């Protein structure tokens, strides 16, 4: 088959032009996916959108639909006592956690990119969360760290902050902040666990980006007398900035689509316990709309600051 269809360089005139044939092969390569995606993705997606405008009932194993317009949406936003709260909570958490995860993972990536003994081991340790953090094990670990009394992990990290040492220090220095900074630092310290555990892939990506920086850039910077600080901001940062966007989007999607987050749990309740598919779909679509808007906004903002080497 291969010999017949190969481009024969004009020796034998074929019926289809080379371009057309290549296009057909393109469809051939993606055909299987296209078939599957229509069946397992696009149709369910459309159906779910339709569900969200209907009230769904189940009678003798058959589904009945009744058009109710935007009722489900208003029910999700106005009547459900938890949904809006959870939505708000998840959004705010993502909003402050994402930058922290990014800064942290960039920092760790820079450190892990330096040469020192035991680097391979250190890398192996920091990527370990990648294989655990997506599963139920992580949820259990996280819960147990929160709530097992004597051996609890998280609160220990923040006892230092609980005594408001930072606030005292700031007061001493003449900046009365009313404990707001302390509050923030406490929140961060409480979440060190979560941040470290959800930065695996981000570190991996940043590290790969860092290794793409040509060594000559470092040499040139050193000859010009740049300090490490300047080197980081003027050379390293522009190089990794495209990956800041990739990582940002990855982090946002990961935290939004995490089956453990509260909005998802709430949606799950209506899918499995109080069966109300219409309401569940409406909730999921509102949520998805917010995700899309957030990602579009982030992409738009970050793209203005990104430096692309080739373009």
């Amino acid at each position, binding site marked *: 088959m291969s010999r017949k269809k190969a481009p024969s360089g004009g020796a034998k005139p074929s019926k289809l032009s080379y371009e057309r044939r290549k296009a057909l092969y393109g469809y051939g390569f993606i055909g299987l996916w296209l078939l599957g995606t229509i069946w397992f993705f696009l149709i369910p997606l459309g159906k779910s959108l339709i569900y969200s405008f209907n009230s769904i009932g189940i009678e003798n194993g058959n589904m009945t639909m009744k058009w109710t317009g935007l009722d489900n949406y208003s029910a999700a936003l106005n009547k459900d006592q938890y949904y809006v709260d959870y939505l708000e909570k998840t959004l705010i958490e993502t909003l402050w956690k994402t930058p922290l995860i990014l800064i942290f993972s960039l920092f760790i990536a820079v450190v892990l990119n330096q040469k020192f003994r035991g680097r391979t081991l250190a890398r192996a340790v920091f990527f370990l969360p990648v294989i655990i953090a997506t*599963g139920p094990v992580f949820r259990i670990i996280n819960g147990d760290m929160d709530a097992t009394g004597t051996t609890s992990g998280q609160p220990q990290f923040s006892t230092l902050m609980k005594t408001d040492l930072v606030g005292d220090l700031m007061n001493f220095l003449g900046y009365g902040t009313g404990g707001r900074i302390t509050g923030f630092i406490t929140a961060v310290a409480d979440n060190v666990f979560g941040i470290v555990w959800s930065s695996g892939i981000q570190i991996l990506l940043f590290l790969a980006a860092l290794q793409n920086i040509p060594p000559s850039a470092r040499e040139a910077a050193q000859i010009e007398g740049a300090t490490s600080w300047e080197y980081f901001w003027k050379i390293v940062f522009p190089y990794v900035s495209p990956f800041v966007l990739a990582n940002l989007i990855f982090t946002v999607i990961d935290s939004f689509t995490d089956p453990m987050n509260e909005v998802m749990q709430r949606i799950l309740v209506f899918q499995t316990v109080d069966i109300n598919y219409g309401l569940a779909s409406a909730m999921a679509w509102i949520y998805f709309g917010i995700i899309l808007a957030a990602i579009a906004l982030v992409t738009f903002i970050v793209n203005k600051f990104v430096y692309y080497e080739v373009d």
Partner: protein
Amino acid sequence: MTDNKTELSEKQRRRQHMQSLTKEERSYLRRRELGDKLWVVCRAVILCGLGFIIFYPLIYMISCTFRGRADMNDPTVVWIPRRPTLSVLRETIEAMDFWNTLLNTVLLNVGCSLVQVLSCAVTGYGFARFSFRGKKQLFGIVILMILVPMQIISVPLYFQFRFFLGTDVNLIDTMWTMYLPAMTANGIRSGLMILIFRQFFRGLPRELEDAAYIDGCGPFMTFVRVMIPNALSSFLTVFLFSIVWYWNDYYISSMYFSETKTIATTLCNLENELKLRLFGDATVKISRREQAAWRQAGCLISIAPLLIMYTFLQKYFTEGIERSGLVT
């Protein structure tokens, strides 16, 4: 002796060199050296501290797993159990029906991952190398697949399998519910995998294929004979990640499976199962510390296979991403 001498002379030379510098230059060099040394200490502290945060749950799991009954209620036992036993481990393995579940999971996991890597690679190649009408829009669907949370499509998808192709064929609780999407590059996180492969194939030189075309190879044969051998390490990396994702998935598998058990779903039901087995009553209340022992033991044995895999194939996880072409 000679060694010592050369070193000495080097020292002397260095001293001479230092003396030849101005005062400012000397203090600059000294400051830099001090800074470098301080940084080494700081780095060690930071890495050890954060490493501890990562290891903490693992150490905790191991500690819990080997606790005896008496240790569970003894608040003075923090890390090292006083009366170490294997009974918790044994009970947990029994309650999870571990070996059968493991076999099931591996069958599902490795099979699906393998099929999905292949199908995603083929799709990614199609997007990377051919131009056809509607390519942009179709690739938009791939991006959409990454963005849409599974929860949106899960209910309609369930009905899709319950009444397969509109007939009365019920695929729920069979492995087809996992294999069919995997085969057609629509399984867990396949959008991301298509994207990775597309980036990877775009990064390979076109000359590779041109040479094959001139030798009379068709596009499919070129893909099999030329591109796949070049992409093997990238295949391996994506395959490993895919195994991890399938292993950790419990949302999708708990939706489709009630009889077929996977590690993740049994872990989620472990608590009730254990209460039934140990106390004969699913509603019995036991203290947090006691619960933790079995729960952590369950965690430990469910990630043990992954951990073993990670220790041996760590290289492919950490270095593979660079080769996978996601970063170009």
